[in-house]
C-alpha cells in the first residue's frame, strides 16, 4: 500500500436543504453493490415547488396622468383613468382624495364656494368577477366623517373587494364625473385641482 491514502469514494453530498428535515444521512454506492451499475445509481429525486402570490398594478399600468377640463362648471366632468391589476388572488382597490373635490385658492363669503363636487367610480375587472363602486369625492378624504367604503389607504380588509384574480384583464378604470355645476353656491373663477391616490393590495 502506497502512501496514497486508502480513499474511500468521496461522496459529495450537497444538500440545499431549506426544510426542517435538516441534513439527511449520506448513502454511499460503490461498484459491485446490488443495484449499482458501473458505479452509478440513478436516484429518483422528487422536486416540487410552489409560487408565492402577488398583487399590485400591472407593470406600466398604474393609474396616472392628468385630466384637464376648462369650464367644467358649464360642461361637467367625465373621464376614465384606465389601469390594470396584476393580482394572483382577490384584491382590494382604494382611493384617497387630497381636496375632497376640485379646489381653488382663497376664501369666499357666504353664497360662494371654492370647492366643486364630483363623483369617483371604480370598475375593477377580474377573470371571474367585476367589482364596482361609486362615491362622492368628499367622502374620499382622509378626514371625511362618513367615509366612502373604498376610501384609502388600501389594506387587506379596506377597499373595494374584487373576489377574483386579475391578471391581464382589460377594462379596469377609475372614472371621475360631474354634471354641469348647479349651485346653490356660486363657484368662483379660477383654476381648480384635486389629486386622487389609488392603492391596491391583496385581499385577505
Amino acid at each position, binding site marked *: 500500500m502506497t502512501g*496514497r491514502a486508502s*480513499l474511500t*469514494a*468521496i*461522496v*459529495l*453530498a*450537497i444538500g*440545499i*436543504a*431549506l*426544510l426542517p*428535515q435538516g*441534513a*439527511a*444521512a449520506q448513502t454511499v454506492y*460503490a461498484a459491485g453493490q446490488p443495484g449499482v451499475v458501473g*458505479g452509478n445509481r440513478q*436516484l429518483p*429525486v422528487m*422536486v416540487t*415547488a*410552489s409560487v*408565492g402570490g*402577488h398583487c*399590485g398594478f400591472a*407593470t406600466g399600468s*398604474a*393609474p396616472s*396622468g*392628468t*385630466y*384637464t*377640463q*376648462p*369650464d*367644467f*362648471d358649464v360642461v361637467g*366632468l367625465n*373621464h376614465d*383613468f384606465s389601469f390594470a391589476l396584476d393580482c394572483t388572488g382577490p384584491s382590494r382597490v382604494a382611493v384617497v382624495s387630497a381636496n375632497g373635490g376640485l379646489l*381653488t385658492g382663497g376664501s369666499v363669503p*357666504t*353664497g*360662494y364656494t371654492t370647492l*366643486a363636487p364630483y363623483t369617483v367610480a371604480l370598475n375593477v375587472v377580474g377573470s371571474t368577477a367585476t367589482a364596482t363602486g361609486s362615491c362622492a369625492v368628499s367622502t374620499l378624504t382622509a378626514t371625511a366623517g362618513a367615509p366612502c367604503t373604498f376610501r384609502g389607504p388600501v389594506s387587506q380588509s379596506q377597499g373595494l373587494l374584487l373576489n377574483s384574480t386579475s391578471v391581464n384583464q382589460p377594462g379596469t378604470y377609475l372614472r*371621475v364625473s360631474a354634471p354641469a355645476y348647479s349651485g346653490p*353656491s*356660486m363657484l*368662483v*373663477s379660477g*383654476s*381648480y*385641482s*384635486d*389629486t*386622487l*391616490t*389609488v392603492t391596491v*393590495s391583496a385581499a385577505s
Partner: protein
Amino acid sequence: MLANGSNFERDSTVKKFMLMALGAGSMIALAAPAAAQNVTGTVNITGSVAGKCLVVPGSGSTFGTTVALGELADATGKLRTNIATDFNAAAGLTARVVCTTAAPTISVDADPITAATATGGGGYDNSIDFTASVAVTTTSGAAGPFTNDSAAAAGADTLIGGRLANNGSDNIAISASNFRTNTASDLLAADPTYTGKITVVIKPGA
C-alpha cells in the same frame, strides 16, 4: 492507489457525481424573489371656471322688462307729474345676478323717452329726460346707487365694490326719477310712440 492497483483518481470509472443526499420526503423549496410591484397610482384632475356674470335662475345673460307708461301728458298737455311713481311701481325692475369674480363692474346708461316722429320747439318738447338709478346688494351690504342721467353720456364701468350677494334674493334694483321736459312749461308733442331705455351692464371685471 486502490487495493486492486488502480488509481482511483486516474482510472476510476467512478465518476464524480453529485449526490443529493436527501432525506426521504424532503423538498426543494424555490422561494420566489419578492417582486417589487407598484401598488400606488396617482391621478390629477384640474379644471377652470371662467370669469363671468350670469342671471339667476337659468344662467342666462339678460334681464329686464318693459315699462308701459301710457299717456305721458296730463290735462294741461305737459308731462304728468306722477310719471316717476308709475315707473317705479312697474314689475320686473329687480333682478338676481351673480358673477364668479371678486370685483365685478357695473355701467348704467339712460336714454331719454323720445317721440318717434314728432319734433319739438315752439313751446313743445318731444323728449323726456330722467335719471336712472341702480341699487346693488353685495356680500358686504348695499352698494351704489349707480346712476346715469339721460341727458348725460353713458356711464362708464364702475367697480361695484365687492362680490354680488348670492343669497337667493334679487340683488339688482332699478328705479328712475327726475322725469322732465327741457323747460317746465313745455307741452309734449303728440306722438303715439315715445320710447326710452335704461341699459345696465354688469361685467366680471378683472
